[in-house]
């Protein structure tokens, strides 16, 4: 079976996020009030061949740890995306 998996990569808590901070500073000028703690990250969509959802997630996380993220500064999560 093929599963649609979404992997999100974000900076670990405590790691400074210059991109998120810059976006946050721009918000008041655009009229957005009451939005804080902006953190920027990346999102990957994958089609994963696997025999179960659990296996698909495991394969995606393995890929995320090895390539899609730099575990020194980033963390990643994977979830199955509902098929359209």
């Amino acid at each position, binding site marked *: 079976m093929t599963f649609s998996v979404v992997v999100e990569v974000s*900076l670990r808590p405590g*790691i*400074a996020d*210059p*991109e998120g901070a*810059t976006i946050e500073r721009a918000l008041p000028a655009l009229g957005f009030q009451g939005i804080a703690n902006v953190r920027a990250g990346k999102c990957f969509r994958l089609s994963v061949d696997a025999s179960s959802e659990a296996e698909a997630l495991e394969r995606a996380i393995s890929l995320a740890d090895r*390539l899609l993220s*730099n575990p*020194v*500064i980033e963390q990643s999560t994977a979830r199955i995306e509902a098929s359209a």
Partner: protein
Amino acid sequence: MTMRVGVVVFPGSNCEYDAASAIEAVGATAGFVWHGATSLEGYDAVILPGGFAHGDYLRPGALARFSPVMQTVADFAYGGGAVLGICNGFQVLTEAGLLPGALQKNRGLTFLCQPSTLEVASTRSALTNRATIGQRLSIPINHFSGNYTCDDDTYASLVENDQIVVRYVDNPNGSRDAIAGVSNVAGNVVGLMPHPERATSALLGSRDGLVLLESFVSGQLVAR
């Protein structure tokens, strides 16, 4: 004996000729090593030059670390060979786990291309064994992701093991403790964001890169 330095060329490297020319300016010989190579035979030291290896896609260095040559570079480094990563080469070495920490986007999110003043923090590395502690060097920087980051434990071990090689005087990119370059514990693997190969002649505005490159080709991996 003349030192022979292999300069690794990834698709997207763009400082390999500057590096080779600078190496020859300090009396060593240089040759190019394609990223698909699996041998460093004939070379006494290795440089990973600046540029945008594999387009810097995903993250700088993230794809380059899987180039075939990197396993060979890792073996060379573990064997005590001198390895220098400049700018993108530094990013590749951190991604490959040959140097601690990571380089993230500059504080302020601007690409920085300007002279920078460095202060030598350790003379125990292959890059600084002919320099003196506290020596100030004018060396240009040219990067978007040069903001050196590491966790508290890693930082403590960098200090403990004298692995901080050079620091910025004015910290233009927000690096932790103004770190511009680090080494591994042994001192034979060094990475830095500034470009010593672009500071080798008065015509280029500075000759301060020479002492670093002379250290690197001295064959003296670590001053003791």
